């Protein structure tokens, strides 16, 4: 249990895929405009990363070096396409919100990092590798979309919480998301540096 908690801490805090490794930013910024799209796309990314990690680790020994990257992209694209089809079928209201940005997960650094980790790893390790990248991504997109919908639109899951006049419209735009993300990274780095210093002094 302790080991699991430590693992989650490592993937969400120490090696966060978005805030520390800065991977998969384009889908992150575009799909965090509302809490629902953020949660759904974060979960979709996590599932895709785990599944493609498992398949890649199974096929890793069969695939020759020359076509590794191409094969990994095909496999990731395959899982993303399945996710997309399922979303179209069962959550059609998100279709326009997710638009082109869900397929973008395929070519984001996130997918490549997961494939790189899964290569030559055991199935379990590959699944965990994908899960850790996905968890970090999910945590950031959850917080981002929460803040963006609450302060930018004044709602949560579409329910009004803050009156419309007090909403900060800027946050809902893509460049508002970039500002917010920059602040996130800065704060995160500052806290991480301080924690590191504290550990050294001990």
């Amino acid at each position, binding site marked *: 249990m302790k080991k699991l908690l430590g693992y989650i801490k490592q993937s969400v805090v120490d090696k966060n895929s978005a805030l520390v490794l800065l991977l998969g930013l384009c889908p992150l910024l575009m799909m965090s405009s509302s809490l629902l799209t953020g949660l759904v796309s974060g979960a979709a990314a996590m599932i895709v990363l785990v599944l493609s990690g498992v398949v890649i680790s199974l*096929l890793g020994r*069969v*695939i*020759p070096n*020359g*076509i590794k990257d*191409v*094969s990994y992209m*095909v*496999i990731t*694209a*395959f899982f993303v*396409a*399945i996710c997309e*089809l*399922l979303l*179209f*079928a*069962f959550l*059609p209201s998100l*279709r*326009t919100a997710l638009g082109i940005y869900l397929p973008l997960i395929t070519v984001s650094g996130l997918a490549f990092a997961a494939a790189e980790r899964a290569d030559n790893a055991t199935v379990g390790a590959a699944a965990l590798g994908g899960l850790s990248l996905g968890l970090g991504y999910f945590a950031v997109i959850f917080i981002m979309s929460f803040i963006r919908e609450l302060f930018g639109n004044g709602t949560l899951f579409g329910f009004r919480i803050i009156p419309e006049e007090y909403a900060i419209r800027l946050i809902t735009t893509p460049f508002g998301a970039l500002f917010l993300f920059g602040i996130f990274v800065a704060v995160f780095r500052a806290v991480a540096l301080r924690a590191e210093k504290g550990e050294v002094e001990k």
Partner: protein
Amino acid sequence: MKAKIQEKLKAAFTLPSLSAEQKKELLRSSLILLAICASCALLLSGVYSLVEGFIEDNREAPILAAAARTLPADSHIRADFDTDEVNNVSAVYEARTGDELIGHCVHATAEDYDGEMTVVVAVDKEGAVVAVEVVSMPEGVGTKVRDTSFLSQFVSKTGKVECVGEITDEGQVVAVSGATASSDAVTECVNGALAAVSQIYAEKAKEAAVG
């Protein structure tokens, strides 16, 4: 100099000679990649055929909802109508209460300023517009055409509608200032719907005359 260039060109355009082993490796890689792509495509088409029905229903759902709002009736059934014959028309629905036909709802689309606009136009038995609803359109200044002040102008129009700056004649509507392209797109949809419905009645009259 010339000989050198020729040599380089030749080197660039001839395939590198491969040993038997390299050829075998290349063939193996290609076959593996082919196998991966083919199996992915096969599985994907399997998943698609499973969820295809749901996706189709979802596509139709907002149209049917708009049809129910613009022309309330017991049922809205998709009519057998050749949509290639009339511009802008994607589908026609027959609105029936009990057995009686009370009108048609037309699903029409038109090119807006930057993207496609989807409109449902309800037309009564006399071929006059009952209501118009914009189902979806690209976000922007054009969304002002969703206001009832613009859309209500189409009510009870027949034949062909013209979108103008100032009304001088019957059968005209005033465009929303600053959203002319979207106003034109809505008008195109309405005209398509009116044409489709008048064609349906013309065919019915012909059939009745023959019968």
